[in-house]
């Protein structure tokens, strides 16, 4: 059974294997298909039209399914690998071990944002940015460059306390847990972390930065934490909602699973915490 661990608890060997599996997916071309899929949904999901991956109730099950697909791809390279998660409310500075050269590498240099160390630095030749929105082919970051700090544990707690999963109009204007976690409204958790990292992470092609997976693995864990805290609250809406994925509707692009089937993560993996 796959156990997703806090990135700060990984051994040197676990980090090495995770990085090696990422590089192999990249080399084979499989990695970039995930970037392409994500950007297609970023561009296609709108508040007034069909919305599946973002700004909608299925933001959470869609990314859960997306991460499962990616984790299975990693495991086809190295069966011992699991996706780690980044609790950015605790490991909240560019000095965190997450950004060390033996793991994801650090922030970008000031002149052009280019990441200069670690396995994903352009100078290695192993991490070309191929699916892109501008002509720059090197991984960029500006950790904390936007000025606003990462969310605090108290801010996370304030969102976990929201008892209603989601509300009409089921988009970026909604009240409720999902949209506050996604960050279009309120204290802003998920969106703010993308902005804090900067570089490709702030764009539609955000999975170009491997930290995308660790960020979303933690967002996914917060959904699991929320479900435990509110056992009487379920996924909403339940049926008959135009342009929105209801509880028992299948999600694109896979068309093989529904939010209802993805509610229980323990069918696929567990976390290192209780």
């Amino acid at each position: 059974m796959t156990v997703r661990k806090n990135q700060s608890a990984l051994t040197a060997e676990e980090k090495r294997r995770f990085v090696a599996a990422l590089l192999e997916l990249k080399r084979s071309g499989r990695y970039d298909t995930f970037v392409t899929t994500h950007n297609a949904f970023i561009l296609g999901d709108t508040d007034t039209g069909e919305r599946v991956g973002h700004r909608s109730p299925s933001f959470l099950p869609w990314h859960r399914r997306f991460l499962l697909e990616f984790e299975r791809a990693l495991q086809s390279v190295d069966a011992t690998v699991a996706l780690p998660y980044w609790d950015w409310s605790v490991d909240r500075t560019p000095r965190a071990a997450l950004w060390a050269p033996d793991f994801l590498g650090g922030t970008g240099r000031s002149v052009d944002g280019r990441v200069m160390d670690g396995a994903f630095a352009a100078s290695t030749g192993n991490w070309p940015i191929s699916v892109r929105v501008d002509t720059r082919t090197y991984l960029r970051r500006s950790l904390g460059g936007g000025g606003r700090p990462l969310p605090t544990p108290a801010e996370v707690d304030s969102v976990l306390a929201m008892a209603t999963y989601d509300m009409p109009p089921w988009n970026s204007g909604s009240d409720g847990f999902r949209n506050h976690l996604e960050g279009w409204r309120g204290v802003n958790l998920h969106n703010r972390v993308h902005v804090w990292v900067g570089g490709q992470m702030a764009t539609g092609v955000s999975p170009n930065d491997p930290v995308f997976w660790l960020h979303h693995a933690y967002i996914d864990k917060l959904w699991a934490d929320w479900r435990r805290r509110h056992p009487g609250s379920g996924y909403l809406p339940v049926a008959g909602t135009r342009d929105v994925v209801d509880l028992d509707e299948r999600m694109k692009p896979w068309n093989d699973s529904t939010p209802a089937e993805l509610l229980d993560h323990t069918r696929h993996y567990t976390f290192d915490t209780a």
Partner: protein
Amino acid sequence: MSRPTRRRALRGAAALAVGGGALAALPRTTASAASAAAHEQDGPAPFDEVYLGRRIQGRSGGGHHHHGAGYTVLVDGVELHVMRNADGSWISVVSHYDPVPSPRAAARAAVEELRGAPLVPFN
């Protein structure tokens, strides 16, 4: 491949190449023309300026996608994918998680983020 594929394009919706800022010459479907006309009454004002050495333009209508709220933004003649949020704020594909108040602000944020790099057409 250097270009993200759009879901709309996959669906076969009108996906028209944009080049050189020839906005007025772009064909439109009847449906998008109607929705653009509807937005023109209450949409944001057009703009055309040089910001940090880049020409940025924004106009109601046009655009080769339905979800830009009937508004097209160009940076040096290449379309920047923008989107209007439910609360009236705007984002672009270059700064997707950080809403700003207007399409001009989205264009300026994109220019700052690009640091001189040309956009890649997204269709």
